[in-house]
Every structure is written in C-alpha cells, then in structure tokens.
C-alpha cells in the first residue's frame, strides 16, 4: 500500500522542511520526526528497508492531526498534494506487518463492540428520535454521525428543533458511521465495508435529500465515497448550508423575508467563528456559517488566521496516538487567538473543535451553529 505513494513521498521531501511551522503537532511537540517532510523521509526509509517496521516507526504515523495546514501552506510545490494518505497507508502497512499498537487494538475492540470508535451511542440516537416532534413527515433524512453523537449531541438536537419549528420532521438516520474515521486509522478493508453498507442504506431510503450534521461526514459522502466508486443517489447537503436556506437570517435579505419566517435576536456580545479543518481545508465552505451567525452578534470579529488558513483548535480526526498534552496544546494555542479578539462566544461546525474548546477553554462560551441559532430564535415569529 505504501509503495503506491513512492513518487509522492519523494515530492514531500524535496524542500528541506518548509512545512515545519505549519504543523500543529511539531509546534507543540518540537520533535524533528513529526512534521510532514520528515514523516515522508521515514516512510521512504521504511520502503527501502533503512528503517524497520516496529512500534516506534509505526507510532510516528499517528502523530498527525489531519488538519491539512501543511498542504495549503506549502511554499514549495505549486500544486501541493495531501500527505495524509501516505500516513494512513503507513498505518495500514504497519498492521499488515504485524505491528499493531496498544491504542489501535483498543480502538479495534470498540469498533467490534459498538460499531464506532467512541462508545455505545444507541441511547443518544433514541433520545433524539424521541425529541423529533413535528407533525407530519418530510422527505429529508438527517444523518447525524457518530462523532456528532459522541461529542456534540446538543448541536444535533438544536438542528432537529429548528427543523421542527419550521414544520419539518426529518427522518433520523439509523446508521451513524460513515467509515471515514475507520479509514483514517488504517483499517482500510473495514472502512470500505462500512462505507458500502452506509451507501446502500442511504440509497434505499424513501427520501429526496440527506442533511449531514458534520462536515467530515459530508466530505466522506461527497468525496471519499466517490473515490471508492460508491454513488449516493440523493441530494446531499451539509447542515450549515441547509439551515442557511431554511432560516434566512442572513444580512441583506431581511427586508424581503416572508412573514412566517422566524426572526432572531441579536446578542450584545462579541462572536467569532472557528473554521474546523474539514470546513476550512477539505470542503472549503467559509461564507455560509458566517452569514448565519454574524447577524446574531452585535460585534463579530475574525481571528488572526481564518478560513483556509485557520489554525486548528482540535485535530481533524480522532486523535488516536496523540498524547493528551499535544491535543491540549493545539487547543490552547488557538485559545490565545480567541482571547486576542476578546470573543465572548466561539461558534463552530466541527464536533472535535467543540469538544476541545469546552474542555480547555470555557464550556459556556462554545456553541455549534445550530445551537446559537436556536438560542436567539424568536419563537413568536409565527
């Protein structure tokens, strides 16, 4: 598998480490082996046999937060390639060579037991189905993925409530795992199996549209599934985009709003938006979340880096193999930027970012897009 990336590995090593400062893992850990060009050099040494597969060499390839900062900030290659597939291939290759790290075995057990990498999420699924109370049915399926269930159930609940308030009762997806995190960990065969089942499940539903809670899950359906040759035969829309059209809170269109469209309060606070890595560098959606949340704040400030170059506040993928201090360090670096603009609230579309900021910053100041919309929603607008 790693052999497939031989030429790309060479390209990633040509520049003598120009990616160093962009790598959040290096910025925290300060280890020469962790930034992309050095990882690629070690991958090459593994291919040539100069370095052996063992726990140390395998563990190195988990020291990546999947943020793609290295790719978009590359100053050396005109059309930079994403190096992350190389690391995922190395993880796969390590397991094939019999090097399975303890934390990988632990996650495999969870996958076998719960069908996802987190925990038993069935109670949370039931609770959200119970709260889905609008009259009638709609041709919309709401796909809440395992990451959203595990890390930010409140976001999904708020979305369902907003949809219900508009008279829409979505069908809640029974399947919650797209397989993309499983792939990221190197379980390629299992990931493909999960993806195939998910595609079959979605295609057989009597619906017209799939609204996806998490940018990562949206990327899985729209990009990764296509790479696997799996076609989703329904319209797929990211939750943020769906809410943008459903609620019409955006500035400039207020005068044309129909009477039955809900209105929103404006808070006397400073708000900001944290582009999670999947929004910023995988699906590159910057405007819609901003247009949704900006009218809800009297003051709206952007952080020092934002949109495509937004410094991540959390790893893009489940941080398997990353020390707690590294994960915490990534978040705390971003908190400095949040504090610089004196933000009262940080809004994000990314469950991992949400989870990291409530842990390491302030649980009362972090909201998902749907939560902040619901918080400011004026219920008597009808």
């Amino acid at each position: 598998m790693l052999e497939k990336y031989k030429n790309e590995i060479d390209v990633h090593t040509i520049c003598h480490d120009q990616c160093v400062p962009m790598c959040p893992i290096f910025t925290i850990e300060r280890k020469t082996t962790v930034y992309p060009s050095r990882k690629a050099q070690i991958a090459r040494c593994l291919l040539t046999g100069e370095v052996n597969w063992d726990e140390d060499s395998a563990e190195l390839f988990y020291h990546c937060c999947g943020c793609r900062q290295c790719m978009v900030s590359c100053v050396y290659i005109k059309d930079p390639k994403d190096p992350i597939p190389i690391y995922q291939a190395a993880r796969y290759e390590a397991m094939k060579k019999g090097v399975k790290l303890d934390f990988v075995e632990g996650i495999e057990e969870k996958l076998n037991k719960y069908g996802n990498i987190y925990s038993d999420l069935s109670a949370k699924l039931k609770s959200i189905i119970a709260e889905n109370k609008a009259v009638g049915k709609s041709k919309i399926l709401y796909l809440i993925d395992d990451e959203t269930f595990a890390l930010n159930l409140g976001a999904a609940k708020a979305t369902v409530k907003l949809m219900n308030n508009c008279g829409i009762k979505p069908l809640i997806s029974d399947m919650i795992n797209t397989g993309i995190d499983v792939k990221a960990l190197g379980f390629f065969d299992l990931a493909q199996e999960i993806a195939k089942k998910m595609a079959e499940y979605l295609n057989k539903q009597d619906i017209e549209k799939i609204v996806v809670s998490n940018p990562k899950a949206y990327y899985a359906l729209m990009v990764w599934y296509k790479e696997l040759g799996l076609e989703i035969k329904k319209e797929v829309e990211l939750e943020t985009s769906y809410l943008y059209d459903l609620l019409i809170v955006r500035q400039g269109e207020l005068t044309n709003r129909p009477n039955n469209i809900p209105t929103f309060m404006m808070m006397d606070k400073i708000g900001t938006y944290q582009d999670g890595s999947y929004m910023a560098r995988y699906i590159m959606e910057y405007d819609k979340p901003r247009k949704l949340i900006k009218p809800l704040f009297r003051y709206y400030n952007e952080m020092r880096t934002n949109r495509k170059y937004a410094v991540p506040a959390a790893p893009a993928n489940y941080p398997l193999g990353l020390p707690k201090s590294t994960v915490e360090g990534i978040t705390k670096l971003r908190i400095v930027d949040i504090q610089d603009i004196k933000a009262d609230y940080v809004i994000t579309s990314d469950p991992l970012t949400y989870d990291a900021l409530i842990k390491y910053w302030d649980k009362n100041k972090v909201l998902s897009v749907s939560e902040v919309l619901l918080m400011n929603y004026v219920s008597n607008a009808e």
Partner: protein
Amino acid sequence: MVVVQVRFLFVLISGTLFFNGGICIDTKKLTKFELSDMNMTVTVGAGYNGRHLEDELNRLGYTLGHYPQSLQSSVVGGWIGPIAIGTFSTKYGKMDDILIALEAVLPTGEILQTTKAPKASQGLNLNYLFLGAEGSTGIVTEATLRIWPKPETRKYMIYTFNTTHDGLGSIRNIMKTGITPAVVRLYDEAEAAPKIKAFGYEDGYALLYLGFEGRKDLVELEMKISDECCIKEGGIFKGDEPGKIWEASRFDTSSYLKILLQPSGIMDTLEVSSSWDKLEEVWFATRNAVSPYAQIIYVHFSHFYLVGGMAYIIFALKSDEDMPKLEKDYRACVKAVLDACLKAGGTISHHHGTGTRKTAWMKEEHGVGFEVMKKIKKLMDPNNIMNPPVLGLGGDKDAGEI
C-alpha cells in the same frame, strides 16, 4: 571523544552531515520567548522557528524584519551560525546587526552570557565568537534580538534600467542619502529577461525592485527620494505590481524543482559581496566564470549597504552524461566562481556561510586572520569536538569528503 554537530540550520543551501560518527544536537525544544517592549528586544530560545517567531511578534505589534528564504524551516540559532540575512535586510540588517546578546554552552562546559547593553566598551565583543562560527565554538542556546514596531505600511516601486551598471548607480545614490528601503533587488539583464518579457517591459533591460515599510509619512518621503535617485540614472518607473507578486511568492522556490528533480541536474547558489568600487567587477567576473559550466545563470543583487553590496549567483548544470561527470563540472564551476570572486576583490560568502565546501578558500581570503581563527577555535574547543570540519578550523582529517 564525541564529535558534536548542532542541528539548527534547515536551509535550502545547507543540511546536516555527520562526521566521524559524531552526535547531532537538536535545539528545537529551546523555545523561550521574552519580549521587552521597553528595550525593543526579544529574548528567544535558539530553537525558536523563524515563522513562529515573526507570527508571534506580529501578533504583539512588532516585527523582527528578518525574512530569510528559509524562514519556514530555520531557527534562531541557525541564523547566528552563518550570520544569516533576510530579504528586507537593507532596513532591518543582517544577523550581526539584529543580535544584541547571546547565551551559549562552551565545548568545555561553561555557560557564557554576553552583555545585553546596546553598545559596550569593555573588551572584545564576544557575540563574534559565535556569529559566523557555524557551531564550531559552542552551542548557542538563547539570543536577544532587536525588534521594530510592526510597520504601518508596505509599498513597492519598480524600475527598469538600460544596464546593470545604471541600476547599481541608482542604488548607490539612494544609499548615500541615508534612507534605507527595506527591499532592494536588482536583477541583471539576464535574470531580468523572463520578468521583463512577462510584464512587457523594455527588452534587454535590468530590473530594480524597491520595497519600503514603516510609518506612512516616512515611507512616502523615502519613495520620493528614491524616485529622484532612480530617474537620475535613467530608471523608468513601472508601478508596484511586480513587487507585490514577488512578495506573495518570495518563499516559493518550486521553479528550481524542475532542475533538481531531473536525473542529471545540479542547482546551487553562491553569494558574494564587495565594496562599491569592486562590486560591478565581482559581478562581471563571477558571471563569466560560471558560463563555461552552467546552462542557467541568474545573477541579482539583493543586499546593500552604504559601503557596498552583494551579488547572488544562481546556476544550474544539466547533463545527459553520467553523474560523476556532472559532479566534476559542478565542483569546477564552484572553484571557478570563488577564484574569480577573490581575484576581483570580493568575499567568498556573504550570508550562506562557509561550511565544508568553501574551506579551501579561507586561507586565501583571510591570510593571517585564518591562523587567528584556528587559535581561537583551539582555545575554545581544545578537544575539537564542535563541528570540526566547518570553516577549515578543526583540521582537514575530520572533514570527510569535501
């Protein structure tokens, strides 16, 4: 005895080699950051990454103004080793201008802290035991650097000149007035050609980029004075667009990849400097010295002082023949350039350093001074453990294949 190398210079023109089975010390975990806005200094660990440092200073309202092309991958200690320089150097200076004081661990185990006074008169300036020593006299662990307020504005002015001679004349005029544009880059007629063509300027002309930054009113005044100096030498004003493009892509050297990735391609750069009276001759002599060997020769001047400047020679050799022949030609090319440079009155390195490749010219360049350097090295590093082969100070026997 263990031979020590300090890994702190990650630049395109350098790297880390092990000599005689030595060890390599990685300083990247030395990340102290202590800003003094009163003194306009920042004291940082030697392992602080260049991009990280500039970003952090910008966040706090300051700049170091030091933008080497290796900014992304180099660290503070690595800047001190070869007395590095950045592309905005005409305003912000070279590392010996920027460095106020340092802390270093000596090969004999003592920790040396040099004085943090702005200027002093109490003996030798010990910073110079490490500036340019390329890690051969000890391990720099911390540095106090001069900072500036983050500039209010940044502007560019571009001019074409009939000849490189005219362009150099205009820069000399500017420097004499006492103003310091941040960026001064003069591309000779050959290096300018692709840019001249792309922008539709006068075919066969040299091209000058001037960049200014700081307070708006001062920048406006500097631009006015510089314009007068350029017009006087026949410069034709071209606006600011090429400057903005240069700024946006100044860390991008991807075009070199076309040569570097070829099976039989070698690309390298040499940077030589001299006083004003010899600068044009150094340019002329080094350019001609490269010609018999290289298929691509670009020369530009990008660092200037009241008393002189620097010529930067980029050359590429391509061959359909085998690598040994190409390597032989490459070595001959380097020798030809450095011989020609010394003969014309230049110095063999302006900011890349000497390393192991240019040691053969040290004696010719420094004369008795080279013997003095050897004595200093022996005194500071009696067991010859610190980067023995660099600068030719630790003896050829440790140098490996140079």
